[in-house]
Each structure stands twice: as structure tokens, then as C-alpha cells.
């Protein structure tokens, strides 16, 4: 087993509110892990700790066997483990192409031509090539999210973290974004995806983690979790979701 990320005894408190309690799980390279769970169960906080946007209170996050919580070079780790947000978070002052290019020229210090070539490649991959001159405010939600994915991919990360990438989208745009993620999964891209799209999670993931109240309640293959969950809580959660 080729573990690229391993989370050990991770805990996170906001004041005295313990949002994550002793979280342990690992991610295999080339596999897709979905995290499901009710709103408020700590899924976003977990991803944000893994991208170091939140500082974990205790525990370890091992990336290629090194604890990133004590890392001196946070920006360089973030280029390896990127993140895609629910709210897209595109740079509003830049057009689509610039959004992708800026990380390449300024963070990875690539020369302009190389950066442009690569950006265009990833924008093509997400089907946004025709819109390279558009500003984010001129795009639909689904288009914005595809640009955000291209921007993250352009950094050539080893792992991408997705925090509810389709939750802010109108229903008719969910499909176009899920398709992009599905294509990445088929290429064997390592991803951790927080999602409420159960059918998608079941289809695309190699591993599913169910979180409840800041702990991992149950984890396993999609078949185990969706067809034969062991725990009552998991059954209840899935039941509520499939009856929606």
C-alpha cells in the first residue's frame, strides 16, 4: 500500500469546542477518497487542516512520511496538496487565463511562455478554453468551478482536496463539474472529496469515510458503506439522504 497522506490522532478545537476528535485515516496514491457526513460534522475543518488553512490542535498529518504540521515551508507543501473550494475563490481582478497562470509564474517561477502553455492545457482539459479572456464575474458557477479546478491542477499537485465542489451550484451545473472530477479519477489522480452527491461518491470513490460529530464513524469501500454499513448511524444518515 502506497500511502501518500496519513492523518494520525488529529484533533482541532475552536476555543473549547472540539470539532475534530482523534481522526485517523490514510490516503493511497492514485485513489479517490470521499468524505460524507451531515453538515457541521467537521468535514471542511478536516480538509482545511490538511491544507494548513486551519492549525490542528494536536496530532500529525504525514505527507510522504513527513509531518507537515511542523513544516517550515507551508507554501511549497500547498503546491503539492492543493484545494478546491465550495465558493470557487477565483481572483476577481484576473481573467481566466491569468487565474491559472499566476501560480505558475509567481509561485513555481516558470517562465511566461511555459506557464501560458500549461495553463491553456489545463483550461482545455476542463473545457474552459473559449473563456480565457473572461473575468470570473462574467462566468456561471459551474464555469467558475471548472476554472478553479484548472488553476489547482496547473500547479501539478500530487493530491487535490475538494470541499463540496458542487454545493454552491445550480442543479443543472453540477454535472459539468462532476464530469471533470470523474475524468481525473479515471486518470488515477489522487483526490479527497467532501460531497453530498451520494451517487457520485459511490461511483467515483475507492474509499468512503463517514464522519459524525467530529469523529470518523465508519469507513470502507463504497460497497461496504453504501450497501452494507455496519453502524446504525451510517444507515440512518444514508437513509435520510436517499429519501431526500
Amino acid at each position, binding site marked *: 500500500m502506497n500511502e501518500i497522506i496519513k492523518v494520525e490522532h488529529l484533533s482541532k478545537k475552536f476555543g473549547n469546542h472540539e470539532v475534530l476528535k482523534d481522526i485517523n485515516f490514510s490516503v493511497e496514491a492514485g485513489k479517490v477518497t470521499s468524505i460524507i457526513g451531515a453538515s457541521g460534522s467537521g468535514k471542511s475543518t478536516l480538509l482545511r487542516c490538511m491544507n494548513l488553512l486551519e492549525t490542528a490542535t494536536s496530532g500529525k498529518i504525514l505527507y510522504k512520511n513527513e509531518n507537515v504540521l511542523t513544516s517550515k515551508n507551508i507554501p511549497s507543501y500547498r503546491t503539492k496538496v492543493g484545494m478546491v473550494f465550495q465558493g470557487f475563490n*477565483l481572483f476577481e481582478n484576473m481573467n481566466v487565463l*491569468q487565474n491559472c497562470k*499566476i501560480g505558475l509564474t509567481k509561485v513555481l517561477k516558470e517562465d511566461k511562455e511555459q506557464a501560458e502553455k500549461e495553463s491553456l492545457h489545463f483550461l482545455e482539459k476542463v473545457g474552459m478554453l473559449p*473563456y480565457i479572456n473572461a*473575468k470570473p464575474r462574467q462566468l456561471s458557477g459551474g464555469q467558475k468551478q471548472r476554472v478553479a479546478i484548472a488553476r489547482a491542477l496547473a500547479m501539478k499537485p500530487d493530491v487535490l482536496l475538494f470541499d463540496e465542489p458542487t454545493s454552491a451550484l445550480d442543479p443543472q451545473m453540477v454535472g459539468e463539474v462532476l464530469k471533470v472530477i470523474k475524468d481525473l479519477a479515471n486518470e488515477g489522480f489522487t483526490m479527497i472529496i467532501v460531497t453530498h452527491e451520494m451517487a457520485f461518491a459511490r461511483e467515483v470513490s475507492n474509499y468512503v469515510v463517514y464522519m459524525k460529530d467530529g469523529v470518523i464513524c465508519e469507513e470502507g469501500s463504497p460497497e461496504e458503506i453504501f450497501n452494507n454499513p455496519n453502524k446504525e448511524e451510517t444507515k440512518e444518515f444514508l437513509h435520510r439522504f436517499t429519501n431526500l
Partner: protein
Amino acid sequence: MNTLPQDFFGRIVFIIQKYGFTLLEGAGTTLIIAVIGTIVGCLIGFFVGVIQTIPISKKDNILKQIFLKLVKILLDIYVEVFRGTPMMVQAMFIFYGSAIMFNIRMDMWTAAYFIVSINTGAYMAETVRGGILSIPEGQTEGAMAIGMTHFQTMLYVIIPQALRNIMPQIGNNLIINIKDTCVLSSIGVVELFFATKTVSGAYYTVFEAYSITMVIYLVMTVFFSKLLRFFEKKLNGPKDYSLSTTDTLAYTSGMLKYPDKENHYE
């Protein structure tokens, strides 16, 4: 020697002929102090505003935290002092005070530029801070998630947007400075107001001289407010965008701007 005409317009023409150059020189002085003071003030404002918004993280080493905290407190004091006292009082205090307290003979011009800059800086610091805080947090996180440092995030993402948002405030400050440089007459700077005082005294043509000066001030402020409005529009960029495609047929039909050379970020 010329005799003073009896009617209002005659007197105006007389003053313009005789003292037009003096008034224009005064206006030039006013403008240059106001423009340079505003530019330097904005730089100070950006510097202070950016420092004020550096997050203090408990992960940093303790010395860095204390140092940052101390700098922020000092900058706060600076902002409060210069926003909270009249510029004319500051002018007297700094110009005469520096000589008595520190034995520095600051020349009048240095003092003039210094006072307007430092005053504008104090106002702009708060404006810039607000401008930075008004940019949604998400964009900062988006920048951090691709590995940008705090400095890069500020430089490429936040400040360009904050700058656009505070352009009206910068314009406001410039206009206020054009008017308020007249307080520098108190330390002997011959700007437009001082020049007018001299001119009006010569023939007791107070009303006429100040009529001319009113017009000069108004022309200057209106000109700059229009100019800044124009820059604002430029900063907004085009309202629409053109689709680009690799389809060469579309290329010849002219719908293509690919890649859009003039719109590149660098």
C-alpha cells in the same frame, strides 16, 4: 503707473494682467504640493494599511509576534494623532517644534511636503485597511491554497482590487489636499492662498482677487476629479469579453482574441 479701473470686470482684467503670473505660480505650488503629498501619502497609507492587516499567528515565534504587535500599536498612534489634530496646528508644531526640540532646521518646502504626506498617509491608512478587509476572505484562501505567500497574495490579488475600490477615496484626498494646502501659508509657503492675500492687499481689491482664486481652485479640483474618474473606468476593464477558440474559421471571422495580448497580467 496704471490706474485701477472702476468696474468689477475691469479690475479683474487689471489684476490678471498685473498679477496673473504671481497667482499662477501660487496655483502651481499648491498643485505640486497637493499631488506629491497625495502620492506619497498613498504610499504611506498602503504601507501602514498592509502592515495593519498582517495576521498575527500563534504559530510564529514569540519575538516576531511581539515585534509585529508593537509596530501595529505605533502605527495606530500615528494614525490617531494625525487624523485627530488640524493640519494647520501640525504644520506649526512640526515646523517650529522641530527647530526647538531637535534643533533641526527643516526648510519650509521639506516641511510642506512632509506635513501633507504624513497627514494624507494617516487618512489613507484607514481607507486602505478597509479596502483590504473588503476583499472576500475566500480569495486570500484561494491564493494560499496554490502556495502564495502573504506578501504575494497582497501584491497580486488583494491590493489591485483594494486599489480599485478606494480610487474614489484617493480622489477625495487629492481634492481635499488641493484645498487644504492653504494652511501651509501659516509657515510661509507662498501657495495660491498666500499669493492671493498678497495680491489683494496691493490695491485693496479683495473681492476681485478672491473671485479669480475661487475660479482657479475650482478649475483644479474639477479637473482632477474628472481625471480620477477616467482612471477608475480604465481600472474597471472592459465590460464584456470575447470568446476565443482554436477554430480557425472563427479566427478569420474576427471573433477571436487568442491569446489576448494586451490583457495579460504581467
